[in-house]
């Protein structure tokens, strides 16, 4: 086999190994079957795969930037909620719960006051009738 054929074979091997690495297939089988320069380059590719990991932007940045492009609607608000970090979601849940509980207590107290007022009025009406009779 001549030099260009060997080079082409090596290029195909390297490409197949790289695809196996990035698509989580069995890349080791290809590397362990190789020797000499091929093995050296496949080992280097494996090290690159371990060193060059994807990096994610912060959720806050992604949400802020998205808001610059997309009009706010209830649907997109839900999307923003899902991209919030867990601690913000927890804080929002606690805040929401406290506010709801506070409003509920106020509403219940008001209702009880109204009911007791009605009851007092109902009790005073027969008394008033008695006093008229006498």
């Amino acid at each position: 086999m001549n030099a260009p054929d060997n080079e082409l074979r090596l290029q195909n091997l390297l490409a197949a190994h790289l695809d196996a690495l990035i698509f989580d297939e069995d890349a080791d089988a290809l590397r362990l079957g190789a020797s000499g320069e091929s093995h050296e380059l496949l080992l280097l590719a494996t090290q690159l795969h371990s060193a060059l990991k994807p990096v994610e932007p912060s959720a806050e940045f992604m949400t802020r930037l998205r808001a610059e492009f997309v009009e706010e609607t209830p649907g997109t608000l839900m999307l923003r909620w899902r991209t919030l970090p867990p601690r913000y979601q927890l804080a929002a849940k606690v805040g929401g719960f406290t506010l709801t509980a506070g409003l509920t207590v106020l509403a219940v107290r008001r209702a009880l006051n109204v009911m007791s007022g009605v009851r007092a009025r109902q009790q005073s009406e027969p008394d008033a009738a008695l006093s008229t009779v006498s």
Partner: protein
Amino acid sequence: MMSNNHYAELDDSALVVQARDDSGAFGELYERYVKKIYSYIYYRTGNAHDAEDLTARVFHRALVHIETYTERGIPFSAWLYRIAHNLVANWHRDRTRRKVIPLDEFVAAGLRTEAPDVMAESQEEYERLIEAVHRLPEERQQLLLLKFVDKLSNAEVGAIMDRSEGAIKSLYHRTLLALRDDLTARQAEPARRASVQRRQGRGIG
């Protein structure tokens, strides 16, 4: 505006057409590519602050020019990467002009904090490797990042770099050879220096 589920069913070409008068469609394109574009820019700039700034500029530019974008063999994703590539190239030019201290070690610092479970020795190896990647010519760095970080196929990388799949394979082979030679030369450098010093010492004595 349509529901998010509906957007998710559309391919990029359909979303691009819709995005011309529907911000929700552009939002879907943004969701699909923001992480990949950010990752690519992060490794090219070496710090999160500039990566955020340039990522924002990529999408702003895409939104402004989406009216005039026509596919003509270049998929939308490749178009976005080309915008990112041009902005990063301008950023490097400006930085050279302003003589800012290189920030490349920020990437290594970032890796240190992002992968605490990795052994210190391996960490040093990774840092040496990333430094060597940054010494490569621009197009070779671009190829490695598109493949390893963004996990794109050779066809996708070819569309971004305007080359055939065969040319991408060949470039990858040459890039690995150059990287190996650079690392070998750097490893041999301290031993060579020590040998020169020994010889000079004997000459003086």
